[in-house]
């Protein structure tokens, strides 16, 4: 019978109230948003918080909107919100590609973007997607708010820079012209965690790759980023030769582990294969060649 251990429960009425509660009940307090990362862990008793701080009642944290040249996503936006958001899909096809293959439609109804990012599972698709997009996270703490790059947000498996008495409130993604992005994941079955996945966001200047982000999921890439492959691509002509070589570099530098999903050599191969495929797809989209709603 998998049910959680005893736990106390508080409801936060505002961000400040949540921060107060988190501080008061530290270190055993955890934020409860959608609960779809935390509650499964509690049922298996892998997580046994002493106090849950329920933030679902805090207004003004569930939104997806374009502000100047930034897409801003409130931390309480549900996965389903992101998948259904036209403005998100229009500017960041990678987000829709990723959301389509995250969990299943019912789980996406309730799980939150903030919750998934803060759970920091090494297999979390959105973490890689935001890393590829070079987004930034807004974290509220007792001293005010701070901004952290998505590529520095995760410090290790199940670890982020969010402190005990802090809360992620918003994710910001820069909108740039001549950009395209794509995400693909290989899993044993629909809705499964990835065996390996790659997301690419690219900005072109003419034929040249002016900026690129490559996010890798579930393969031990530090901060979910394929930094060496990104570096290789900057300034290069966007073409097959570059894509294939970038895939090899990304494969060489990640650190996948062998497990039930597959042996290390296969996962490395996936990184090579998927990185190249997503570079191809992102560049096509940047060139306006594929409709963003088509699968990559």
């Amino acid at each position, binding site marked *: *019978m*998998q*049910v959680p*251990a*005893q736990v106390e429960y508080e409801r936060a009425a505002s961000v400040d109230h949540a921060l107060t509660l988190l501080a008061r009940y530290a270190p055993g307090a955890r934020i409860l948003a959608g609960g779809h990362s935390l509650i499964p862990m509690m049922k298996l008793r892998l997580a046994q918080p002493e106090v849950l701080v329920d933030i679902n009642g805090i207004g003004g944290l569930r939104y997806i909107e374009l502000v100047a040249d930034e897409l801003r996503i409130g931390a309480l936006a549900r996965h389903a919100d992101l998948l259904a958001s036209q403005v998100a899909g229009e500017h960041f096809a990678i987000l829709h590609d990723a959301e389509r293959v995250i969990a*299943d439609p019912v789980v996406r109804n309730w799980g939150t973007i903030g919750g998934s990012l803060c759970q920091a599972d090494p297999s979390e698709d959105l973490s890689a997607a935001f890393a590829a997009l070079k987004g930034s996270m807004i974290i509220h703490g007792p001293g005010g708010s701070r901004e952290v790059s998505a590529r520095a947000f995760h410090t290790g498996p199940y670890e982020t820079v969010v402190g005990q008495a802090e809360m992620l409130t918003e994710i910001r993604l820069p909108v740039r012209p001549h950009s395209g992005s794509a995400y693909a994941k*290989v*899993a*044993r*079955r*629909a*809705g*499964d*965690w990835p*065996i390996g996945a790659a997301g690419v966001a690219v900005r072109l200047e003419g034929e040249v790759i002016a900026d690129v982000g490559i996010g890798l999921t579930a393969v031990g890439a530090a901060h979910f980023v394929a930094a060496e492959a990104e570096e290789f691509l900057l300034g290069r002509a966007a073409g097959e030769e570059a894509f294939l070589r970038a895939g090899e570099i990304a494969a060489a530098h990640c650190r996948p582990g062998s497990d*039930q*999903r*597959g*042996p290390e050599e*296969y996962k490395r*191969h*996936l990184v090579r*294969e*998927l990185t190249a*495929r997503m570079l191809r797809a992102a560049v096509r989209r940047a060139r306006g060649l594929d409709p963003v709603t088509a699968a990559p």
Partner: protein
Amino acid sequence: MLHGAVLRSPLAHARIVSVDASAARAHPKVVAVLTGADLDERGMAWMPTLVGDVQAVLATDKVRFQGQEIAFVVATDRYAARDALELIAVDYEPLPPLIDATTALEPDAPTVRDDLPGGNRIFDWSAGDKEATDAAFAAADVVVGCDMVYPRSHPAPLETCGVIADYEPVGGRLTLWSTSQAPHAHRMFYAVLTGLPEHRIRIVSPDLGGGFGAKVPVYPGYVAAIAASMATGRPVKWVEDRSENLMSTAFARDYHMHGEIAATADGRILALRARVLADHGAFNAVAQPSKFPAGFFHIFTGSYQTKSAYCEVTGVYTNKAPGGVAYSCSFRITEAVYLVERLTDMLARRLGADPAELRMRNLLRPEQFPYTTPSGWQYDSGDYPRALRLALDMAGYDELRREQAERRARGEYMGIGLSFFTEGVGAGPRGHMDIMGLGMADGADLRVHPTGKAVLAVSVQTQGQGHETTFAQLVAQELGLSPNDVEVVHGDTDRTPFGLGTYGSRSTPVSGAAAVVAARKVRERARVVAAVMLEVAADDLEWLDGKWRVRGDPDQALDIAEIARAAHSSLELPAGVEGHLDASAVYNPPNLTFPFGAYICVTDVDPGTGEVKVRRFIAVDDCGVRINPMIVEGQVHRGLADGIGIALMQAISFDEIGNCLSGSFMDYLLPTALECPSPELGATVTPSPHHPVGAKGIGESATVGSPPAVVNSVVDALAPFGVVHADMPLTPANVWLAIQAAGRKE
């Protein structure tokens, strides 16, 4: 009502040094904690299995698989029971575990069952003619051999197993609301175990959320709940969670097979040979007829003409959960069909022959039935070539091969996989089939009420197969009633006749036959009554269009409702004829029935990632007379999904020290609606000559026939890479590895 929770061993093999439940007993909501020592005092710490071994209810000396039951907590609510599990302190002395079945018989292998004399060997069994088979192989033009594993999987019905045990001490009555596919067999089992007479044990197995063989065995949790109810004098409810279900209840398959097929140069199959290592887990708890330790595996010559065959099966113990027979296997026919259908495909590849043509060349012909196979099965009826032709037509086989060639030229890989299967169901004739010494004959009681409505009580028990409809149809057909006027009662041992339960697709062939026989007895009694009512001789009546009619004067007729009223009235009946319209039957099937089918699976494989997509699934089934086509098709739909899951993703796996890596639906993956294409079904009908209405049964056919079709399809897709065989599950990693391995060979 109290709630139970089971403490389970985290280790696969360990000596139990001590169990200290004192802290758990002190929990304010805990009423009792039972340990192996407590049950030992009642003689209930061990129980018999269905095949004559013993199984621990709560471990006393050792634990022998991860997840084995150690203690049973009884509390006032479920959450508290779960909490209390953590308060039980068990001191284990770890022992080296035996996980790899292929090492079980090595001299230095850990001994799983030190309570038995035979070491890790459970049985050696063989069937067929070794000499003739070896001779055939020696003389053959072509021999193709292969090692193949049918991995361990689990039926995973959506509802887990559970029980409410209510022992009422004043009357000495035990009532069990239980997830049981075989309530009467369970009742006898509990009678032997507890010493209570059967008429004071009532098992109610109502709507079950799926069975698929998972709910045939008696599990330790049930017995612990009974003991707890006896100890506390209160009803005790225990329902397992999903991890318990996957880690401790009856698994399926786990056959390590080496198969060989011998043929002439022009592709005629001469002989088949197989050597099998069967992993039974820590206790031999397979649910199958007792004289067949390897079930019906020796049906492995399949649907083809073969001169000779020989197989050997060795069963071994390992430090894993017990089981082996479950999940629509028809008693190991899934394994046998997989073996022969893979070998047939490999033979076709070796000879450069088309797999459909090769099968057509070797299929048994209709005029050969009833056909006795080299391993002793007598197939009852079948027109195999017709079924295969229909499947090929439906699939557009030639067009598919053309498409395959075009795609290969473009570097795209699609596969077309066939499977032709014969299975034997409806166990079985009491002469040679029994479980725990119980003959596999099933009863049916039919009662027609004065107003002409009928109640049919049967011994089988439905888990969604629609017995309420099909059995009502059988009786309605025989008696000219509307099916709506026939109520089917099942699942309550107080209200139903004895029988061995639902599994092995036996409901239609055995219990359905019993229902028909009972209905015909009723009809014959009705004839006598009608003769009295119409003042004619019984022989002057004929049954036509739902009524007894006077020969030559059909308007002089009576229907069952009218006759029933009269049979309950003061009408004078002839001497020796009893009133009312009730009848019972116990049906002892003269043989199994043999449904068969031809399946074609089309897949698309991405060699860059190893992903497999099932594009189409064509299934032609022949289950004899189809009582309710919609229900038949529903059964086939499910079996095709099983095949996709088993072939591509489902496997219960362990690490080297026996940790079960598939203890949840996160890792024991089941196919969703996205993996299953809309199936294309066809049917042929060759009635069973010995079944009262010619029906054969369908429940397991598609699970038997579909996995080889999927695997054959994927291997076919990968043929250009030199892949000749790859073991299930064909996950993306395994597909990719198969391609790499084949590449390295060349």
